[in-house]
């Protein structure tokens, strides 16, 4: 809780491998060579689809699972040899895992009780922890007498009372309804700032990850797909997987027709697209990505011929501030664009030209889109 100089290598995971044998006899690589460094005051999120190894990684850090090989260092010391109860990390479990036979006070005070903290101090710290999560005065109630959101707060209070150096949170908000979730996201973020400790947060919800994190680790099949700030991950996804997983994107495969100077021209199934040139050569296969909000719809007379794609509007959906346009290009591929709703009055079947800024295209060499971003 003190404001020390943050250390960038607070948690260091080196070449972590873990596999499981499924009941059918197959092998699942839950962690397939994970490398990761986390700073001591960072809010870092593990993001990935269900089954990608997020819980496994948390379990290994908490000590409930072992590694096949690899190393985990916390503040420079290996964690792997200590049993779970000696690790200076605490966990907020996916379904809270509150002790149903203990009241809230005893749940929150559990960590202090087993550590033998004197009664007076213990009660004071329990009250503080509950206050911190905005839930004072419920010490005498049983967990079953609280709502889901309240239970969530109790689980948080219980996990921070031991003043861990790092808090592990496994999809803590997934059971809450939408409104409450948004509120808790902010509270969690504030709590992290207040405590000044590292939060390792797990979610499969990209929106949540983008909102809360200092950095995001995108995991897929036990591998780190990308590690970066929300902005990097969103705007410069490292792979087609990240692109598809985070936000909505238009993804096209094409062949470079001509490259020279700042720009390159790429043939996407008959339609030509201009993008920035990342030392591409004619004949290279590339994947091109563009977020829907990077298209603009200009009145027909203002179109600057080269930087537009012609498409036919199929459907227009109003989503609050914007209109989402579902279009189809001349080559038959679908295209999605997000347009300010001031431009309304569009009808299905109407021909549109969608403009773009050539530098907005994210170019990934190779048709499959797997590879590092340029």
């Amino acid at each position, binding site marked *: 809780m003190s404001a020390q100089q943050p250390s960038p290598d607070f948690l260091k995971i080196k070449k972590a491998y873990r596999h499981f044998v499924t*009941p059918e006899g197959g092998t699942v690589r839950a962690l397939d060579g994970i490398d990761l460094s986390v700073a001591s005051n960072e809010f870092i999120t593990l993001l990935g689809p269900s089954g990608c190894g997020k819980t496994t990684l948390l379990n290994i850090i908490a000590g409930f699972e072992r590694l096949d090989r690899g190393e985990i260092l916390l503040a420079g010391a290996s964690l792997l040899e200590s049993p779970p109860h000696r690790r200076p990390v605490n966990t907020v479990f996916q379904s809270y*895992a509150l002790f149903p*036979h203990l009241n809230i006070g005893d749940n929150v005070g559990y*960590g202090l009780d087993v*550590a033998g903290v004197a009664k007076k101090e213990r009660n004071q710290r329990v009250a503080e922890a509950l206050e911190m999560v905005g839930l004072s005065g419920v010490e005498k109630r049983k967990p079953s007498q609280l709502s889901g959101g309240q239970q969530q707060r109790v689980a948080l209070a219980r996990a921070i009372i031991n003043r861990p150096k790092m808090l592990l949170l496994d999809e803590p908000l997934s059971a809450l309804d939408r409104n409450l979730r948004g509120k808790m996201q902010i509270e969690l973020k504030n709590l992290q700032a207040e405590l000044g400790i590292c939060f390792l947060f797990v979610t499969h919800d990209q929106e949540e990850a983008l909102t809360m994190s200092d950095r995001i680790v995108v995991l897929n099949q036990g591998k780190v797909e990308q590690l970066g700030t929300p902005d990097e991950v969103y705007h410069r996804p490292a792979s087609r997987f990240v692109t598809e997983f985070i936000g909505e994107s238009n993804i096209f495969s094409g062949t470079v027709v001509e490259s020279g100077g700042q720009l390159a021209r790429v043939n996407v199934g008959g339609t030509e697209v201009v993008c920035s040139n990342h030392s591409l050569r004619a004949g290279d296969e590339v994947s091109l990505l563009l977020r829907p909000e990077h298209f603009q719809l200009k009145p027909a007379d203002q179109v600057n011929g080269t930087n537009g794609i012609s498409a036919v509007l199929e459907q227009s959906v109003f989503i609050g501030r914007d209109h989402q346009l579902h279009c189809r290009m001349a080559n038959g591929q679908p295209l999605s664009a997000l347009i300010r709703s001031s431009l309304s009055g569009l009808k299905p079947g109407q021909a549109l030209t969608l403009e773009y800024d050539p530098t907005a295209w994210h170019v990934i060499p190779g048709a499959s889109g797997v590879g590092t971003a340029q």
Partner: protein
Amino acid sequence: MRSFTSQQKQLLLLLSPATLFLGIFFLGPLLIMAVYSFLEPGLYGGVEWNFYHWNYGRVLGWADGFYEEFDIVYLQILLRSAGLALVTVLVTLAFCYPVAFWISRMQSRWKSFCIFLIALPFFSSMIIRLYAWILILRDSGFANQILMSLGIISEPLDLMYSGTAVIIGMVYIFIPFMFLPVYSSVENLDPKLIKASQDLGATPFTTFRRVIFPMTLPGVVSGCILVFIPALGNFVVPAMLGGAKVVMIGNLVEQQFLAARNWPFGATLSMVMIVFMLLVVSVYLIRAMKNPQHS
């Protein structure tokens, strides 16, 4: 109006078939026994309809006025039966508790198989199963044959007709009664709670003491009651495997109804046993009512 309808409801409830059934087949015999326990024994069994005050005093040791001197022999028997029942409870618990954890961690098809195995004895007669134990425990039985052929012992062990044999038999008979409730509470225990406890800094032992044990306690208590009560009345095992060298309260009741032809005293002993059991059960019920979360 309100109280009237609720009264009507109560009346209906009283007349419901379940209540009638319970009244006739449960309270009826109990009442007969309670009445008999205050009557004079008939010379050839049955009862004389005279109030007789000796029966309860006799349980506590007072002489009943004919051929008798003060002797607490009946209390001794009651305590001995309770002692055997208690040992049975403790040994079955010591066996079932870890085994329940072990089985609950198995894959589901092995789980079902093991539970089936444990429940299997329910499908055959207790007497036949105890005869099987005689074949195992006697001097020329399988246990001694195996131990001797392994060279562990040179003379057969005196297993049959011993206290050990009685405890083996009792434990064997009552294991399913303990296992099933204990297992269900263990199976319902969320492994996440154990993780949470360790995560918060509790050693495995503290985790057991503060989480695992209290969470499985309702199952343990049900198991203990389910074993203790029938074990208290069991006399077949001490008779068959222990050679009837000690009397159990169950023998004593049987003896009163048959050999001694003293029905009122048999009824008295049964009443005392029932009260004793009620005490045991009410301790549990009071606990459960105080702590509705548990059960």
